[in-house]
């Protein structure tokens, strides 16, 4: 087989390999099946040609050699690189969307620090690779191919913006989720007084099953386009967990991923106080609320309605005085 025939056959082989996804690893038999009538020695020449033109990669899977094509664009890139740069590039490329820590990269390529830094700088300047920051370990230098989007593990998921926890965004989403769950739990707490709802309390019965489920909340968030970043059910679940820790919602007994708001949470947020508006109450309700107010004693759950009195400095009592005094 002369050089021109090898070139032609190699291009043909490359074309056939390209029909499969780029990540596919071919074994020897599969390659032989792609080029009809070729022998093992012919196949060796073809693969050698593709390897020389940086259009193919070799890798080992167990004891077996596997072949993978490299895109033309990628191969053009590789051809412009030096041997060291290429080696570094290959390792970074293999790390995919997770990226590779500089320390591990160094141990793999085993190059001197100066040439290592020079290569990395050159690759960065040519926009072949980029340096990213891992949310878990912000001090680590992680390299990744320039055109790759870092994985969620690296970026920290939708809650991180530029590797920083976006607390404002989280708080906003939490408020929306809480409001949605609360409206499903307490139908009268957020609306104006209605004649068919008791202003003192109006709740669903114990066997009610129309509370907010995780999928309903997720759909609500995506339908209303509340977040620019797509939020999965897992993300919403973590918001719900934070709301549970805030004691604003709780899981419905005997149901999975179903939530209802807590009455204390509603009161803390300034809702559910229609009973304080005398205009909405009838005579019976006025008498009852007056009686309740008269009998009312201190409760720490009422803290949101408490006005801190002006205490003379000598009368101030600190809760931890026993250990501090």
């Amino acid at each position, binding site marked *: 087989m002369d050089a021109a025939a090898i070139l032609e056959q190699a291009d043909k082989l490359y074309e056939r390999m390209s029909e499969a996804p780029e990540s596919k690893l071919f074994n020897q038999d599969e390659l032989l099946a792609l080029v009809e009538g070729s022998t093992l020695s012919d196949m060796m020449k073809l693969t050698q040609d593709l390897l020389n033109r940086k259009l193919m990669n070799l890798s080992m899977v167990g004891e077996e050699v596997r072949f993978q094509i490299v895109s033309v664009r990628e191969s053009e890139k590789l051809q412009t690189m030096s041997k060291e740069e290429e080696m570094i590039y290959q390792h970074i490329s293999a790390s995919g969307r997770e990226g590779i820590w500089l320390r591990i990269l160094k141990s793999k390529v085993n190059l001197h620090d100066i040439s290592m830094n020079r290569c990395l700088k050159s690759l960065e300047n040519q926009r072949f690779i980029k340096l990213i920051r891992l949310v878990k370990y912000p001090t680590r230098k992680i390299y990744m191919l320039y055109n790759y989007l870092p994985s969620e593990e690296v970026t920290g998921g939708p809650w991180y913006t530029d590797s920083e926890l976006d607390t404002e965004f989280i708080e906003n989403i939490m408020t929306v989720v809480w409001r949605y769950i609360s409206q499903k739990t307490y139908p009268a707490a957020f609306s104006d007084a209605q004649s*068919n709802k008791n202003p003192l309390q109006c709740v669903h019965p114990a066997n009610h099953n129309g509370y907010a489920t995780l999928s309903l909340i997720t759909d609500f968030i995506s339908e209303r386009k509340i977040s620019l970043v797509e939020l999965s059910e897992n993300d919403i679940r973590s918001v719900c967990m934070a709301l549970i820790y805030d004691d604003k919602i709780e899981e419905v007994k005997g149901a999975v991923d179903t939530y209802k708001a807590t009455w204390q949470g509603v009161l803390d947020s300034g809702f559910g106080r229609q009973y304080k508006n005398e205009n909405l*109450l009838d005579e019976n309700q006025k008498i009852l609320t007056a009686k309740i107010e008269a009998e009312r004693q201190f409760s720490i759950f009422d803290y949101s309605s408490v006005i801190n009195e002006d205490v003379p400095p000598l009368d101030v*009592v*600190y809760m931890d005085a026993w250990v501090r005094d």
Partner: protein
Amino acid sequence: MGSDPMLIAARDPPLQYFRLYFSPCVSPKTQLLPHICPQMVELLVDVAKTQSPESYVYTRLAAQHIGEIASVVISGLISFGRLPAREIARKCKLSSRSVQTALVSLIQLNCVSYWTEKGLSTVYYTLNPTGLKVLLHGGDVIVHIRDVYGDEEAEIVQNVIENGNVTVRNYMGLFADENTQFRRMELLVRLYADGWLRRLQPVDFQPIEDVWNRLFLETLANTPRSAAVSEVKRIAEVKLRAKVRLSELYALGNSNADVFTMDDGVKKLQPNITLAFNLGRYEKALRSRSYVELARSRVGILTAQIYKVCCSLVEQKSADLRHKFLQVSGLVATQDETRAFLEALESTLVENKLTVFTVHEVVRRLPDHLDLSNSITSRIFTKPGRVGGDSGTPSKKIKLENGSAFPLENGYGHEDIFLAPTPPKQVDAALVEEHLQLLANDAVPFLHKLRDGQYTIPFLQLSKAVKAYNYDAIVKTTMGVEAHRVFRCVKDQKLADDRTIAKLVLQKDGDVKSLLFDLIAGNFIQLQEIPRSADRAATKSVYLFRHEEAASYQYMKELLMFNIGQVLSNIDLFKLDHKILLEKCERDDVKGHEEELLLESELKTLMELQTREVSNIGRMNRVKWLYVLYGEL
């Protein structure tokens, strides 16, 4: 935390202090050492303060209600334990006579118990916190009785508390009029039957530990050794029999035949019995209050009103907060044993239907004006509007034969029926049951449904929940909402590291670390070290966080107790600063003529002092309520 003042600010009326509520028929106790100097008071306060929070509060209470010498005696008994009067005088550097006088008052008020060993003449005195707790809660007790029963009943309870105990004959002797006597006896019978008063017997003046020891030793001596029974088994049997004897001893003389007598078909108390206030009954009322408050916070205002009725139905017959056996150290040894004992006690009460109630019982006891209509969404039916001023509701009309519509006048239409206050007995039982179902199905176990229409209150589980939710609220109000989130996350995770917590609470690592530090400093959570090297090097160790309820609650109890002591001593100290003026006001020639005889500036100071005292008492009551949750419940 150190710089934050208590956020428990004044809202509820700060009254409830029984010294402000004297009844004319009982004279207040005289101060045993009226002219004690301020420096001495400060010294005594400091000594008691450093001893323990209990000592701080008990000595202040004794000082305010009985006198400074009684306060020193209390402090001595806390420091040294059981002592004879001579030893108390020697150790406290007081005269024997003054100690004996103080002890008489303290015993009368159930603040000290006494004990004589068989065959010996020495009388030993031991602290009895029950009497001091009655003094602490005195004002609240009277207000509670006044709210539930009325002024006359409150006066009786006040008299009993002030005197420590009252003999029925002596008390009835105070009233010359037969009708008044009849009325008072009726009230006494009622208060006794409802458990607010108890019969005082000689055994009540003796320390339960000593009573138990004597019974145990007597039973042991009467149980012969046998080759067939091991010593361990013998001791267990003796313990069991001694327990039965202890229960019998305290139940003795409390049967209806021993306490009541029938006079012309009228139930009366035996004239020779002595009555004392039953603190255990008030503690049950406090427990109910804590449950109702939680129900109000978790479910809603109307359901809480219904729940209040549920609690009142079983309150008296429910188990005491402190069973006699639990007051004897070592009798119920471990926490598991205690829990098993209390659970067994609770199930016995349920089995005997003492703490079981039905929907119909609740309906009967519901307060007037409790309008439950439209409170449950599944039971909302189309009814004419009944909200005040709902002018948009179309009026009801009837169609006439000629086809025109004729509006119905008020008095014929349904509107009138709904606008009138609903009579209490028209409450829909099914609607009440819906509310009970809400309580039974809530995350907090407010109620336990036994069978159709029958419910009970799971006291043990609920008390645990009450403490937990109140503790959460304390964290929230003192440490902030972010710390509250972290705290609840630690509780949920049982044991977790800072990174896991930060991920779960969606807060920055640095912020979470600082919040965890604050929570540890306040003993809200605890740190656990997991060593990763043989030398337990701190740098290699992993630190995890956990919340231990028992330790945190105990610590909180001590903090709050100390706060009570602080408020009480604040009152004493600012009064001491104006001692001359206050003494002047107490003079017979000045009393009642203050406006004529005092300068304007003095009147102003008096007014300020009164406001400050009332405000401090209000503050103490709020702290005391939190203390009740962790110290008594």
